[in-house]
């Protein structure tokens, strides 16, 4: 039998607007995944540590504050440092087009902007988990 996909939904930075993060977390859970929601104001270090401890294949970051260019590269860097580059990172939020392309070039698996449907997001997480080289269970 196959193990369920494990995904960490995280809200980095100082922003507290968690409507999107919570909706996504619920939708992924309804789609049969095991979802760990970090809660608010997580630093990149806290997020990567949680990902390690929870043994996830995918990290979803929700960022609405415009701080994505400071936060996301740091998360990617920490994943590489901890030899967890197999964990796929997906970003959702208010991310301008050029920043989105830039983040994808840096290694983000997908970027979702406002108005993206839950269906596309769920299937992107599924696809990212398939490509993740992080084992579902140790």
């Amino acid at each position, binding site marked *: 039998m196959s193990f369920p996909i494990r995904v960490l939904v995280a809200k980095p930075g100082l922003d507290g607007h968690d409507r999107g993060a919570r909706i996504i977390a619920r939708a992924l859970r309804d789609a049969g995944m095991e979802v760990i929601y970090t809660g608010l104001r997580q630093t990149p270090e806290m997020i990567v540590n949680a990902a390690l401890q929870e043994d996830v294949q995918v990290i979803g970051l929700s960022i609405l504050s*415009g701080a994505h260019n400071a936060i996301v590269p740091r998360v990617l860097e920490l994943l590489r440092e901890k030899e967890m580059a197999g964990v796929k990172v997906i970003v959702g939020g208010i991310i301008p087009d050029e920043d989105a392309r830039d983040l994808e070039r840096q290694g983000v698996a997908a970027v979702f902007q406002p108005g993206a449907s839950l269906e596309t997001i769920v299937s992107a997480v599924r696809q990212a988990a398939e490509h993740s080289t992080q084992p579902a269970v140790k």
Partner: protein
Amino acid sequence: MTLPEPGQFPYTRGIHQNMYRSRLWTMRQFSGFSTPEETNRRYRYLLEQGQTGLSVAFDLPTLMGYDADHGLAHGEVGKCGAPVSSLEDMEMLFDGIPLDKVSVSMTINSPAAVIWAMYLAVAQQQGASFAQVSGTLQNDILKEYIAQKEYIFPPRASMRLVTDTIEFATKQTPRFNPISISGYHIREAGSTALQELAFTLRDGLEYVDWALERGLAIDDFAPRLSFFFNAHNDFCEEIAKYRAARKLWALLMRDRYGARDERSWRLRFHAQTAGCSLTWQQPYNNVVRTSLQAMAAVLGGAQSLHTNSLDEAWALPSEYAATLALRTQQVIAFESGVTAVPDPFGGSDYLERLTLDLESGARDYIRRIDDMGGMIAAIERGFPQAEIARASYEYQRKVEQGEAVIVGVNRYRAGKEESIETLRIDQSAQDRQTEKLRQLRKRRNNGEVERTLNVLRREAAVNGRESDHNLMPPLLDAVRAYATLGEICGALREVFGTYEERPNI
């Protein structure tokens, strides 16, 4: 049942007999970005364009009580509003803007008392007296725990700070609203109109209870409580929501608290069009949405109004978009003719039915929260948070299934999206603010900073229910010594501790 006239208790149809025939609403566009200097330039521009009041947006580090040079501020300085780390920044923000004449609203919550102390200190420097300054502090911490989640301290310590500001305003600044009890953010977090109405009014009752317990008389402070509601898409429901809010508040003030002054009964509110209704796709559609929402707020009798800009699903507004948003209000005010009579749709079967339904639904919610032991107890058990999360998820499912239509997003999509010019805030704002702080810390009298912070720590540690330990005087001393926001909030964190929400889905 006959409907009372506008200006008559319980003010369902409006708090004034003549409403906009006597005085238009205040056109108050929320703005702030990059640096205090940049924001000051935008304020002067908006005042030149006919805006009649200012409304300050602070950036996230400021909202969370961190200075611009704090590690957690990295990447966030000036992004969502203006950074204010010290009195020096506040001086820049209002340079050349006479605070004895212009009324200023400030969207700040956890560190509201500190920011207000800075504001009052700058007004005094300009020569204005406390009696002359007018404006509004948002200062509504309960909706932070419920919806927007920008909290620092635990609920009871936060409520003590709020009560300190209400008491100080009651005694010293008769023209300043120390709080704007806000449904706006509750709605943005995904609540229904009914939940917005009910939770906001119940929050209001909680502030009243705390002020009474402090020893203030209801009619001394209730007239200065103000409200802030969302103006969302459902046109008639929104108008009914404002009507039901006025009616319920008047009855609650009179019957639950025995308020005798008519001004205590009158619910005054600011409205802002719904940010969460703006779409990234086909951004010009947002102008139409905002116009309709603003019209509902005006027909609902708002005292002041902010209209969102078409580009705000993308970024903070460009100057062009901000001007168009202000023009939207001016067209409603001066061309549409709806200002001729108060509550023009009052008496319509549908509107009256909606008003009564919202009123009775809100009464049910208020009773349930009373039974839990009040709003703080309800927040601690996660009740309003869970109600909102459920409503927000249900709405999203409806969007997903096409039951709820968003033009340009899940219906009538364009083949190719048009792109618009948006405002970008670069990293230089953070560098400039950090350098200013470095120089300030070198220049100021650091012994005096330490002394005032120690007084603040000592006073904060005393049981806050006694009014001779109101924290506003020590806060004023600390900000005048140029203690920074981060230093002051740091001192209060040491005494009060911090709050974290249990994460749940």
